[in-house]
């Protein structure tokens, strides 16, 4: 990271730092003991890390927040080896946290700042008694796909809370408002399309949802509509959309393969389905396998060629 930045500055017309770095680094190669060499380089790189101003980037970013969490006693910065390992972990008693970053992330300081803000804002929520994080968990009995969906919705709502707060502070977060809107539309596709834009705007401007409220909405998105009396009419216009990974109403297996032509199914196939599922309507949907089985069965029952 250090040498990459020095090199970048060198090619942009700032050779002094590179010269100094090499002047101090070259003798280290002459050291006879390997461990001495390594220690020398470690010290050298730490010096330059500071001189390049990296530690202050993090400190400045965290100072942008008006109300730092008082319970937190220390924040450690550690190296992440993979991109998806980057982020903040909170210690069990809430007084210690670790920020994991990849060295490569320092190459793009604005992006680094946005990411740290985003993570830090989440951490602040977790330590904010008003947010009430961790008070309630997912209910038992959800299938893995359902659980995934709830988590995804939770993530979207929490991100909206965090990013809108950063926006109100005049800070640029990791996600733009537009990105948040897209995520909301994807995660809450079950809601009527006409209701989604006003809902998103209210979520963005309100921004004080608690953990418990977010979880309830994630579990039952329709509940979000009922919170706004002027939007409840939209409930009646709810569009049919079948969730990937949701259970087929016939076989109850989670399915990613909904029968796309279910609304225009042949009458005899519909009848065959209703003979086993009297209350079933095409709008309820069905997986491809189930529909196909009724179609095949009707065909075979018409003709039995076995002697």
């Amino acid at each position, binding site marked *: 990271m250090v040498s990459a930045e020095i090199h970048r500055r060198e090619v942009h017309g700032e050779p002094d730092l590179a010269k100094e770095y090499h002047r101090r680094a070259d003798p280290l190669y002459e050291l006879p003991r390997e461990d001495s060499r390594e220690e020398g380089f470690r010290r050298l790189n730490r010096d330059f890390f500071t001189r390049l101003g990296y530690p202050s980037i993090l400190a400045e970013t965290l100072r942008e927040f008006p109300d730092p969490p008082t319970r937190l006693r220390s924040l450690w910065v550690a190296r992440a080896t993979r*991109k*998806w*390992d*980057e*982020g*903040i*972990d*909170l*210690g*069990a008693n809430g007084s*210690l*946290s*670790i920020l994991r970053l990849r060295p490569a992330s320092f190459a793009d300081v604005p992006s680094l700042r946005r*990411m740290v803000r*985003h*993570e830090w804002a*989440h951490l602040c929520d*977790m330590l904010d008694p008003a947010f009430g994080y*961790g008070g*309630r*968990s*997912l209910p038992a009995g959800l*299938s*893995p*796909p359902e*659980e*995934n969906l709830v*988590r995804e919705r*939770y*993530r979207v709502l*929490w*991100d909206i809370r965090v990013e809108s707060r950063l926006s109100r502070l005049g800070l640029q977060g*990791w*996600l733009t408002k537009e990105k948040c809107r897209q995520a909301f539309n994807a995660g809450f596709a079950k809601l009527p399309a006409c209701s989604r834009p006003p809902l998103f705007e209210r979520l963005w401007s309100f921004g004080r949802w608690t953990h418990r409220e977010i*979880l309830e909405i994630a579990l039952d998105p329709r509940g979000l509509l009922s919170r706004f009396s002027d939007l409840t009419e939209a409930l009646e216009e709810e569009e049919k959309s079948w969730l990937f*990974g949701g259970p*087929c109403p*016939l*076989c*109850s*297996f*989670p*399915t*990613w*393969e909904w029968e796309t032509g279910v609304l225009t199914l042949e009458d005899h196939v519909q009848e065959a389905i209703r003979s*086993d*599922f009297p209350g079933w309507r095409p709008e309820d949907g069905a997986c491809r*396998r*189930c529909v*196909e*089985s009724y179609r*095949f*069965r009707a*065909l*075979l029952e018409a*003709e*039995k*060629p*076995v*002697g």
Partner: protein
Amino acid sequence: MDVTRRHFLGMVAAAGAGSLVADHGLALAALKPTVQVENPLESYPDRGWERVYRDQYRYDSAFAYVCSPNDTHACRMRAYVRNGVVMRIEQNYDVDRYADLEGNRATVNWNPRGCLKGYTLHRRVYGPYRMKYPIVRKGWKEWADSGFPELTPELRSKYRFDARGQDEFVRLLWEEAYTYIARGMIAIAKRYSGPEGARRLRDQGYPPEMIEEMEGAGTRTIKLRGGMGLLGVFGKYGLYRLSNMLAILDSLIRGVGPDEARGGRNWSNYTWHGDQAPGHPWVHGLQTSDCDFNDLRFSKLIIMDGKNLVENKMPESHFFIECMERGAKIVVIAPEYGPPSTKADYWIPIRPQSDTALFLGITKILIDENRFDVDFVKRFTDFPLLVRTDTLKHLKPQEFIPGYQEKDISRGASFRVQGLTAEQQKALGDFVVWDSKSAGPKVITRDDVGGKMVAQRLDPALEGRYTVKTVDGKEVEVMPLFEMYRVHLKDYDLETVHQITHAPKKLIRRLAEDIASTKPAAIHQGEGINHYFHATEINRSAYLPMMLTGNIGFPGAGVHTWAGNYKAGVFQGSAWTGPGFAGWVKEDPFHLNLDPNSPGRDVKVRAYAKGEEPAYWNHGDVPLIVKTPRYGRKVFTGQTHMPSPTKAIFFNNVNLINNAKHAYEMIKNVNPGVELIISADIQMTASIEYADFGLPANSWMEFEGLEVTASCSNPFLQIWKGGIRPLYDSKDDIVILAELAAKMSEITGDRRFADMWKFVLEGRREVYIQRMLDTSTTTKGYKLEDIMAGKYGESGAALMLFRTYPRVPFWEQVHEDIPFYTDHGRLQAYSDLDEAIEYGENFIVHREGPEATPYLPNVIVSSNPFIRPDDYGVAQSAEHWDERTVRNVKMPWSQVQKTKNFLWEKGYRFFCTTPKTRHRVHSQWSDTDWSLIWESNFGDPYRMDKRSPGVGEHQLHINPQAAKDLGINDGDYVYVDANPADRPYVGWKPNDPFYKVSRLMLRAKYNPAYPYNFAMMKHAPYIATERSVKAHETRKDGRALSAGTGYQANLRYGSQQSLTRNWHMPMHQTDTLFHKKKAAMSFLFGGESDNHAINTVPKETLVRISKAEDGGLGGRGVWAPAKTGFTAGDENDFMKRYLEGIVKVKKD
């Protein structure tokens, strides 16, 4: 790219402590040194712990036993015992000492023998899944206690015959178990005997042909299956002796004498497994051609066609791999780039089930370019025989020679060596060639092969069209078969073969060149081939290049197959030795030889039991009968194959129901009609969960008396007993059968049942063993006590008395001019049987499968005018599986290409194969923890993902791009579905709870070795059952461990048998095929189970694959290993560069 949120979101689930940082204080405390040592050499506090390490190999005693699963090896292993417990198992390194009566010794190169299965047997023996005592299903017991009332639909439900999987089991004492079973068998035999029994069966809907087949005997409804009998000739095959014994029961029930009495039906093993190469009897008349494994090293060209010796023949695969360093060329033909391909000089990728076209293409090249051995072809094959172009039959001498009588060959090899009878010779007749020297037709007999034909100064023509005037004055055209093949092969030019097979033209050409120029050459076909519906044609076609180049009957040459230790024929009887193996399984129960000192050849043999294919039970308990538009109701199953209705099933050492194709159909729709199911096994299996009785048998290392085995792939006779006491209330298989028979004597008052097992009951089973040794062609002269005393090297071991070591099939034919076991004594490229002509398979021809094809199901690819199949008027749009099975439509490839398979059109676009596993044999070892961990990419002893049914789980291999196109990530759970009309079972409905049990869901694993439209899962895992599904859905730990039975499933839902079904291949069911009996030097026409019979074909399956659940822990996100960048299909840049060879390794 979003920042990962799992640190936060993980906490939503409250239990998210896993993402929190550990308490540092605790960690540091844990690191404190416990003991301060200045100088460890001077003072060391306590070295006692080292004894644990030093002592781990200490043992009190050791013993050798034979690991005898159905993998054809039968390795002798050595178990080391400490405090009465087997601590470890090792290879015995003994084979170099094995000798025969003449002092020949086995080569040291066989050593070492034994694999990881053998090493882990003690994990099975001491594991938690053993059968510990006899059990009976509660509902069945209530039925018995109620006096076995006739089972109406209501009573079937009352006694839970239609819900076996939800019933409970009750513990029994052995005496009680024998009593119940004996009473049950007697009740069933009585109920279905005579006219009243026939009426009942008619009422139940059985076709008349099946009922007639019983000849009035209710005992014919009792089906017995000794689980791969050769694995324990006395205990396992003993079930067939029990079956023969049932003739006594029949005689008592119906009051008939021995001439009319009938025993049970003996269910097959080899063909039932789909392991036989069904085309072999069509070529040479022998059940199977297989050589000893150490013959492989003689090959200079060794072609593996659908054979995976590396994974499936672990102890002996080195003989194949050695070919690399011995300078042989190795060729692999397979759709996937599998383990054997890594050893190959070149791999020919091929579209599944198109191998026949490949071999026909190679044959065409060899013939067109005159690259064949004319002398061998004329001497040993049917290519010179004349065929009438009008009838497609061989020209017979009596057709053009007035008053012709068959030549007298009664002093020749056919009669004197092979046991041909005069009646058979009359039925076969003599044959005709066109003699080039005299320019006219000449008669030859089946003895006129090889030098014997040459001695007649005949030079049969291979080419030309001739006219013969028949005795009725007609002029008919005849052609040597060779000439007809020139016409036939016009459909198989290089370009067409390439289009059919997808094999590169260059490689097809190269293989033809190699076969033409290399000797000895061998083709080895595995069950990978035999599991195709048209395996018959693939097997036959593989012989063509070998027949043309004279690569038969020499070391390192031939066409062979190994899959399953089927070969009762290694204990073959003969006119000069006595009955051999038949003396054990077919001893006449009405004329028992009870003199222990009587020579074995004095044992009277009579078959009261009859072989039968379980395939019929597996097909709704019916034969192949189709209502055809042209002929109405047509029975395709030959009379010699005809099954009888199934009312009782008794099997040992096999997981019959688990391993049945279409298993859930059996459980749901067929077995409710079966009134008694008995399984004897060492472990709790799905078959026992769906049986009425579970009987605990001793394991190989617990045997209390001697047992015998041998093999189709090595020359070793193996006799052994166990070395530890049985752990539970279990018994030797043979003892279970003998004591059951004794109970029948007690109940009926007829002592012949017990007498049938007299020497077992007296603890002298050695009498039976010695009788078999005395009367088998391969063991005559051996004394059991000598063998056990180690006279032939190792106690219990000796070499079978084969004529050559290694054993080379057809050595006698080629070197001593003995006829092959066919009609005409020659290797057969053509069949003029009525059935073969009708089905369009008189020539060896490529057909698409009835299901596993993108094209018209079952179409014959040919324009040959000498192929004239009957389609019976079945429409090309017909979708029923039996209609597709019998429809014979001929088209040239140019037309076939334009046809479609309706299933392919509906998205069923994956060929799905279920080959043998690396670390199991069928389903054995499927609950062994170590095997489960090794067997898949999802083995995890900690079960971090609680969805895993056990410490491992089954997986589907799929091409990464194909999976990605379906939105499936590496490691995701997927559904695999086949034709919804009949799978997982006929009549399934989405709301049937059993559908949930039976629909296959398993992990997908990216594997770029597999082509795009190809998926693979290893076969015979422990299937999901009603109890196991309930278990994993309700247990806290999520294990698929059945409550009440302790059965451990390998899958959450379904199994590979959710996809497979039985197919009644017509060519497997003729009454006319002439061939050698499997265990005697004699011949028969038509069916014999394990020999010419339905060979099951699990590969005849097209599937559709769809995503079910995310593969990440607990169903969240992507399976973690797939995110590392180092897994197939998800490689990161570094890995890609590494695979491309760009990463340089620094050398100091």
